[in-house]
C-alpha cells in the first residue's frame, strides 16, 4: 500500500500543495522542450527532403554557435558575426550537398547515415582546429537578447521566476516554426521540397533540381541549428558537450513523427515537460536521475503502439 501511495497519490498531493513550484517545474520543462524541439526541427527538415537521418545535426548546432562566438572573439561586431555565421552555414550546406549528398545519390539509406556520422567527426575536428576546444560564453547581451528575469507572485505567496532569455527562446522558436510552415505550404521551393520528400525520382522527372533543393534544406537546417546554438549557449555555454544533448531529439522525433514539423514541436514539449516533472516528483523513488532516460522510455512505448509517431504522415497505400 505504501508503495502505491508514494507512486500514485503522494506526487499529486505535492503538486496541489505547492502550485507555484509545479508551475516553475512546468516552465523549466517547457523551455528545455523548446530547445529539444528546435534540434528535432533540424532533423525533420533534412529527413523530409532527403530521407536521411542526419546524425550531424547536433554538431551543426555546436559549429554554428562556435562560429558566432569565435568570430566575435576575433573582433567582429556581434551583428556582423551573426550574419557571417549564417554565411558559414550556407557554405557548409553547399559543401555537404556537393561533396556528400551528390556523390552518394541513389545509395542505400544506411550509407547516407554513415556519411552523416563521418561528417560529425569531421566537424568536431574542424571546430576544434579553428576555434579551440574550450567551452565559450555565448554573446547574449551583444546580440541584444534580453537578460534578467521577471518574478510572478502567486496567490499563496509563492514565486514563479521566468528568465527573459527563455521567453525569447520560446518566441523565436514559434516564429521559426510559423515561418517554416508558410515556406513549406505557400512557396514554390517549399512545394518542390514536399514533392522531393514524397518521391525523389518523380521530382527529378518533372525537372526539380535535387541538388538545389538539398542545398536549400541543409541551409534551412543550418539556420535552425544556429538559433538552437544561440539559445542553448545562452543557458549554459557553447561547448562540444551540446552534441550529446542533441541526441535527445531522437525520442522527440519518435514521439512526434519524423516527418512532421508540428510533431517536432509538440514532441519536444512533451519530452521536456515530462522529464522535468518525472524527475522532481517521481525521481526520488528510484534515487533520482530519471531525466536522462525517461525520454527514451517514452519513445520505446511509442514505438510499440504508434510507430509513425503522433503526427507522422500516414503511409498512403493503394491496393
Amino acid at each position, binding site marked *: 500500500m505504501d508503495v502505491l501511495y508514494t507512486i500514485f497519490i503522494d506526487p499529486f498531493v505535492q503538486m496541489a500543495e505547492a502550485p507555484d513550484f509545479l508551475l516553475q517545474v512546468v516552465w523549466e520543462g517547457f523551455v528545455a522542450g523548446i530547445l529539444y524541439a528546435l534540434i528535432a526541427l533540424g532533423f525533420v527538415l533534412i529527413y523530409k527532403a532527403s530521407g536521411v537521418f542526419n546524425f550531424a545535426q547536433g554538431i551543426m548546432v555546436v559549429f554554428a554557435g562556435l562560429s558566432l562566438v569565435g568570430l566575435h572573439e576575433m573582433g567582429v561586431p556581434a551583428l556582423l558575426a551573426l550574419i557571417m555565421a549564417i554565411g558559414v552555414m550556407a557554405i557548409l550546406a553547399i559543401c555537404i550537398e556537393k561533396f556528400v549528398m551528390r556523390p552518394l545519390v541513389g545509395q542505400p539509406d544506411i550509407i547516407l547515415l554513415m556519411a552523416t556520422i563521418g561528417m560529425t567527426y569531421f566537424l568536431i575536428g574542424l571546430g576544434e582546429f579553428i576555434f579551440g576546444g574550450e567551452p565559450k560564453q555565448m554573446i547574449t547581451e551583444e546580440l541584444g537578447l534580453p537578460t534578467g528575469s521577471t518574478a510572478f507572485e502567486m496567490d499563496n505567496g509563492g514565486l514563479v521566476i521566468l528568465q527573459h532569455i527563455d521567453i525569447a527562446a520560446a518566441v523565436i522558436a514559434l516564429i521559426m516554426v510559423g515561418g517554416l510552415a508558410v515556406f513549406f505550404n505557400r512557396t*514554390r521551393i517549399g512545394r518542390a521540397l514536399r514533392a522531393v520528400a514524397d518521391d525523389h525520382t518523380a521530382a527529378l522527372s518533372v525537372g526539380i533540381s535535387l541538388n538545389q533543393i538539398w542545398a536549400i534544406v541543409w541551409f534551412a537546417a543550418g539556420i535552425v541549428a544556429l538559433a538552437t546554438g544561440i539559445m542553448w549557449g545562452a543557458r549554459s555555454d557553447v561547448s562540444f558537450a551540446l552534441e550529446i544533448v542533441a541526441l535527445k531529439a531522437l525520442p522527440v522525433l519518435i514521439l512526434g513523427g519524423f516527418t512532421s514539423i508540428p510533431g517536432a514541436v509538440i514532441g519536444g514539449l512533451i519530452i521536456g515537460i515530462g522529464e522535468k516533472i518525472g524527475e522532481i516528483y517521481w525521481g526520488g523513488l528510484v534515487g533520482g536521475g530519471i531525466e536522462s532516460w525517461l525520454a527514451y522510455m517514452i519513445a520505446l512505448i511509442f514505438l510499440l503502439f504508434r510507430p509513425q509517431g503522433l503526427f507522422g504522415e500516414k503511409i498512403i497505400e493503394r491496393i
Partner: protein
Amino acid sequence: MTEEARVPEIASPEKILSVDNIEVIYDHVILVLKGVSLSVPLGGITALLGANGAGKTTTLKAISNLLKAERGEVTKGKVIFKGEEVQGLSPNDLVRRGCIQVMEGRHCFGHLTVEENLLTGAFTRRDGNAAIKDDIEMVYDYFPRLRERRGSQAGYTSGGEQQMVAIGRALMSRPTMILLDEPSMGLAPQLVEEIFEIVKKLNEEQGVSFLLAEQNTNVALRYAKYGYILESGRIVLDGDAAALRNNEDVKEFYLGLGGEGRRSFREVKHYKRRKRWLA
C-alpha cells in the same frame, strides 16, 4: 566549322528526337541496351513496343537522363533533341528545353493535392504566376475530372486520375516532347481508351510530340503513326503503325492473333528461331 560539328547529319529538321545507337549499362556490369536507334518526327506519336524487360523504360530514361539516379549509364551512342546532343544534361535542363518524361506507374506526389502536383510541374518555368494559372485551367479543360478533385490528396485518387495527374503535371512544364511510359498500366480498358484519346488531342491541338512505351501493342498501334519493337535491348522491327499491325510476326507475338488456328509447339519454336536469325 564548329557550327557544323554541333549539328550532325542525323538531326534532319523534321525530327525532334533521334537516338543513335545507344548502349546502356547498369551498375557498370549489366548491359541492358545493345545499340538502340530510333527517331520521333516533330509533331508525331511514335510507339516503342516490347515485352517486360525488353528495355523500353531504360530507353526512355536514357533519353530523359533519369538513369543516373539508378546507377545506369549511357556508354555509347548519342541522343539528339532539337538538333543538340543532350546526353549528359540533367533532367532539369532537359525539362527546361521541353522534353519531359511521365514515368511508369504514375509516381504522383501522394501527400500533395492534385493542384499542388500540377504546380510542381511548373517548377522550371519563369514566366510568372498568371501564365501558370492559365495553364492549370488548360489542364483542367483536358482532364475535367481533375478539376473536381483539385483539393484532394493525390495519394487518395484513383489509378486513372493519378495517370491524368501525371500527364497534366508534365504538361505544366510546356513541353514539346513527352516521353510517356506505360500509360495503360493497371487501368481498365475504357480508361486506357480515354487516356489515349487525350494524348491524341494533345498531339493535335498543342503540337506535343510523343514517344510512347507500351506493352498494350493493340492500343498503341492504333494511336501511333510509327512503331519500333524492342526485344532484349535491340530494335528488332520498325515501320508504319498500319504496316506493323498487319505484320505476321507482330500479329503472332504481340497482338495474340495467330494466323490459321492453333499452331503446334514445334512450329512456334521454328518461328522464334527464324525471328532471332532476322534480328
